[in-house]
């Protein structure tokens, strides 16, 4: 259809016709509305008049009590304590400005906060109480009580304040609650939430918000014709929030946090037989209690801008290269696809080359490891063995084998905020880098380098499957019955056993890379890894890690489980900028395992070092 010409008179006629139609609609709708009001106010007047006269019952909301959080042995982790806050209802004050000024003599309010309050009062509906100060001290409560008559619009209200008993160790796992914000409130059922309630902001508090919150009850107040209160009764008690019973052991959680010393990073300990997470820390933590009644901007900025990133939950959001900790899985893939056998050997001369290519892929040991089989290659972490294996497998088979272990997938852990990460594949590279996959990239994938972005929780889920020889129990932090999943392929028992042997050799064989954490009392199986840190400048690449500033040093990784024959605990440790897995991460893993073994088996403490 070509461009039509405007016909002003015709258009004006159409418009007038529409306006006339609109007027008819408006008048008709108004007439209908008025007839509704006429019906209510004139025809049904008598009945409503009687109802108004008899109206003496008011229904108000009783807030539910937030569920408590316990560890696996019933130790309290998060509780509610009765606290008092000062509120003002602008409508009921006689001179708001003056009274606000006078109140500061009874209750300390910083000037900065006062300015903010005055700003808030402008937006707050006058008939709604506004909190002036949460968490009053006992002295403040007492001082105000004596002077109450001077402040008609002001009142002290008791309320339940969330308190965390181990705020630093559990800062990321449990998370914290804060005042519900507009966006959060808008997405909730207003018959369940009030506008000034707590709402889980991070961690378990967020993930289990609905269960922890509960449902409000109804309070019925009877008043007389003058509005005086006569009686009060609970019409419907609130449905309090349910308590959470975690699979976490508070002692192990504390031990894991302390094992880091000054290092930063993350550690996760799980029971591979049932998927229960025993400890899950991200270091450094921070004091979550300061968030509950609103953290000051200064303190918040300090946390947000700290180079150690305490607010960042490394355990489920931190993305790392798995480094050599991927080797046990590569070994499994090789055995499964029958590219290698336990007896198969190859010669490591220190580097690996693809056919007809110049580039050399190096072993970490100059001159190589000599003739090695699979178990040796795991024990000594022989790169060349895995370069070759990866090349034989090809990227597609590697991807399809690793994905079911949850590498680069959401594990579905019951803590809010999990990140997906990246498991490299042809498709991923095409979609995200718009480039084809190069064979050299397959080679370094064999030692866990390249495009990998894996979170500690993914490593823990994979390790749990590996340690239990194929039992796929979804990881969780709150006690519950989850049906086990299954790997889409069946790996033979002796293949699992071979890889376990290799991992046991890492710690217990004379040539193992992590001999230093060997225990006399029980067998530990494990694997170290190094996760490269990018962003180094050109001239820094050839420097030794020790010569670099700390934030450019490589991350240290360690995965381990014990006892090797019948694993009860599997541990993943990431020590950021710890340089090498054996040096920085392995001792942390050992320390966590040792705490567990001491607590659960009558072991002598002497084995410790």
């Amino acid at each position, binding site marked *: *259809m070509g*461009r*039509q*010409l*405007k016909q002003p008179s015709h*258009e*004006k006629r*159409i*418009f007038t*016709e*529409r*306006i006339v139609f*609109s*007027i008819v609609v*408006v*008048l008709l*709708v*108004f007439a209908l*509305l*008025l007839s*509704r*009001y*006429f019906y*209510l*106010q*004139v025809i049904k*007047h008598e009945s*409503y*008049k009687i*109802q*108004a*006269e008899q*109206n003496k019952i*008011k229904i108000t*909301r009783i807030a539910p009590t937030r569920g408590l959080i316990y560890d696996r042995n019933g130790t309290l982790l998060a509780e509610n304590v009765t606290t008092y806050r000062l509120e003002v209802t*602008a*409508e009921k004050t006689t001179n708001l400005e003056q009274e606000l000024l006078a109140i500061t003599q009874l209750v300390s309010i910083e000037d900065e906060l006062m300015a*903010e309050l005055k*700003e*808030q009062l402008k*937006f707050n*509906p*006058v*008939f709604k109480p506004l909190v002036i100060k949460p968490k009053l001290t006992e002295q403040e409560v007492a001082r105000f009580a004596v002077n109450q008559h001077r402040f008609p619009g002001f009142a002290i209200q008791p309320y339940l304040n969330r308190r965390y008993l181990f705020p630093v160790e559990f800062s990321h796992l449990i998370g914290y609650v*804060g*005042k*519900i*914000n*507009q966006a*959060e409130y*808008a*997405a*909730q*059922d*207003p*018959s369940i939430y009030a506008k000034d309630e707590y709402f889980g902001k991070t961690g378990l508090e967020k993930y289990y918000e609905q269960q922890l919150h509960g449902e409000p009850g*109804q309070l019925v107040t009877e008043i007389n014709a003058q*509005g005086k209160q006569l009686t009060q009764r609970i019409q419907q008690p609130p449905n309090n929030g349910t308590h959470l019973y975690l699979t976490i052991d508070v002692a192990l959680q504390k031990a894991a946090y302390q094992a880091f010393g000054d290092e930063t990073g993350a550690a996760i300990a799980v029971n591979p037989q049932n998927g229960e997470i025993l400890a899950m820390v991200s270091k450094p933590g921070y004091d979550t209690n300061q968030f509950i009644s609103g*953290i000051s901007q200064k303190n*918040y900025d300090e946390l947000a801008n700290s180079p150690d990133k305490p607010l960042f939950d490394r355990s489920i959001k931190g993305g790392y290269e798995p480094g050599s900790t991927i080797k046990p899985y590569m070994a499994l893939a090789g055995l499964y696809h029958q590219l290698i056998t336990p007896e198969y050997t190859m010669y490591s001369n220190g580097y690996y080359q693809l056919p007809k290519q110049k580039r050399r892929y190096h072993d970490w040991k100059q001159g190589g490891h000599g003739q090695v089989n699979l178990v040796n290659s795991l024990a000594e972490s022989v790169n060349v063995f895995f370069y070759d294996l990866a090349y034989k497998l090809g990227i597609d088979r590697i991807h399809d084998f690793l994905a079911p272990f949850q590498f680069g997938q959401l594990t579905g852990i019951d803590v809010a905020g999990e990140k997906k990460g990246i498991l490299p594949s042809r498709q991923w590279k095409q979609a995200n880098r718009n480039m084809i996959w190069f064979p050299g990239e397959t080679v370094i994938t064999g030692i866990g380098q390249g495009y990998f972005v894996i979170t500690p929780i993914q490593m823990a889920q994979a390790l749990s499957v590996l340690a239990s020889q194929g039992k796929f129990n979804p990881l969780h932090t709150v006690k519950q019955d989850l049906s086990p999943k299954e790997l889409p392929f069946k790996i033979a028992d002796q293949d699992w056993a071979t890889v376990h042997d290799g991992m046991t050799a890492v710690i217990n064989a004379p040539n193992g890379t992590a001999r230093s954490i060997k225990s006399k009392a029980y067998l530990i199986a494990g694997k170290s890894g190094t996760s490269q840190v990018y962003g180094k400048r050109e001239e820094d690449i050839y420097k030794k890690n020790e010569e670099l500033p700390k934030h450019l040093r490589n991350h240290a990784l360690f995965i381990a489980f014990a006892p090797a024959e019948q694993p009860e605990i599997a541990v993943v440790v990431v020590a950021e900028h710890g340089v090498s897995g054996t040096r920085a991460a392995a001792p942390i893993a050992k320390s966590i395992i040792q705490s567990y073994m001491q607590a659960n088996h009558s072991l002598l403490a002497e084995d410790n070092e």
Partner: protein
Amino acid sequence: MNKRFFTYMPDPTLMILLLLLISYGLVVLYSAGGIVLVERQAVRLGLGLLALYLITQIRPERFEQFSPLIYVGSVMLLIAVFFFGISVKGAQRWLDLGISIQPSELCKISLPMMVAWIFRHTALPPNWKYLTIAAVVIGICAGLIYKQPDLGTAILVAASGLFVVFLAGISWRLIIGLLVFAAASIPVMWQFLHEYQKQRVLMFLNPESDPLNYGWNIIQSKIAIGSGGFWGKGWTEGSQTQLDFLPEHSTDFILSVLSEEFGFFGVLLLFLLYALIILRCFFIAQQAKNTYNRLLCGALTLIFFVYITINAGMISGVLPVVGVPLPLVSYGGTSMLTLLASFGIITAVHSHKKLIQQ
């Protein structure tokens, strides 16, 4: 410069009607919330009327010229809310800034402006090409607001755009087709509602099922209205209001207060004022000199009418509860400012046309 800027007086007929309505509202507000509320509302009204006066000075060609810019600006603000609204530390921050309300409120003006702009030069009724563009423009705005999530405002904003399409003269067959389609898609839409939204609708069908929350509010509101009778209980004498049975009586439920204290007579008076304002605005729209001005004024008037209908229907129990204030009467700054600004556009269209005729 002064001369140029202050020579346009807003249409006196419309101004007198608006001032009558506003004064009536303040009288009711005094009873509902006391002198503190009246003082604050008066300050906002002052600002709003000043805005109306200043907007009247702008030549309508400027609105037309800047329509796309204003539209893109408000869409960007909507996106900004989407991204930054939640990541800001706590709740208070973004409420303090007031950003959370502004962009969607702004859309109630900028969207009809944009749709009218699309149709400004094309032959009317618009062909499919222009209708598609209009649908996209409306969809973006309403979709972003729906995602906030604010279904009620999203529907109202979409309506403000659709009114322009209606006034542009699309065929009745198409209108009926759209209405049938909308009715047919209700069961599909139902799936996308939040649980509480579903409950509100169910509650509306059977208010006694939810005695604590909205159902209770509506029951109390109906008692307030009905007990008012023909002449009302008298100013500040309404027991429902004064004894706090009525919820949010200075904002969404202010018409219940009016009904209780001034009776059916008071309601009649209010609707008379509203009807006269609407008629006057339609008259201005009809007299406007070009397509853009006509469509914009007409759509702004229709959305004003829709607000009145929703609020009056909601509090008397014939429409489900959506948080829509009673235009120019309910306590609250944002909606007041937006409404007076849109009346400013209407008076601008009227005043500038007159001078050109001379």
